[in-house]
């Protein structure tokens, strides 16, 4: 659904690139870590309130 949704904001799509899932079996790459840092201003306010970004 996230992949196909055209109306998603750019940072939602960037988060998708970071492959954030509950059971993650491989570490973040440098690129993924940099993307996470870049989208932090947009997602930080939801960290403690929205499970998706937890």
């Amino acid at each position: 659904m996230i992949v196909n949704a055209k109306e998603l904001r750019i940072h939602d799509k960037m988060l998708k690139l970071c492959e954030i899932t509950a059971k993650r079996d491989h570490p973040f790459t440098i690129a993924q870590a940099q993307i996470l840092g870049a989208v932090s201003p947009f997602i930080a306010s939801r960290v403690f309130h929205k499970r998706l970004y937890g």
Partner: protein
Amino acid sequence: MHLLEAELGADVIDDPKRIQHVLMAYAELMSFIPQLDFKGFLSEQLLKFQQEMRSMDRPGFYIDFIAHFCKYTHCDIEGEAIEYLENVLMYMNHPDAAIIEKVIGAMDAIFKKVSKETQFSFVPRIRESIEQICIKFVGKGSSLLEEPLEFRYQKKVEHLALLGYASGVKCLVEVS
């Protein structure tokens, strides 16, 4: 957040360069947590992170984190800054020069984030931290000499590693 924390707390660090990027992503994320969440959630999270890094003997991670967090956070950290400073100062005589440089960076970030009044309140704590690292209490003076020295102290270290750096001295002088 939990995924980033899990990587920072992993038993083995596979790639120091990669983990530094992970640490910066974590610090960036925490820096943008709004003031609304600071008093409860974020403070607890920072305390947990500090304890975890200390128990895993990874002071560099915590110090780098605090330097970044204090520099960029929009939260009011006037009340908590002294705690961050104490946590950082405990490594000011670390044998690793890289850690000392990180300590100086973190101290600088903390000092720049708080008001002059709060900086003044740091002075006695800094003195206590230095005393704790540099000297030890060895007892009262001799009764034969009518106990002329009320307290006697002995040096624990030759010199404080932090003061081996011009930037370290400058950092301390600015606040005191």
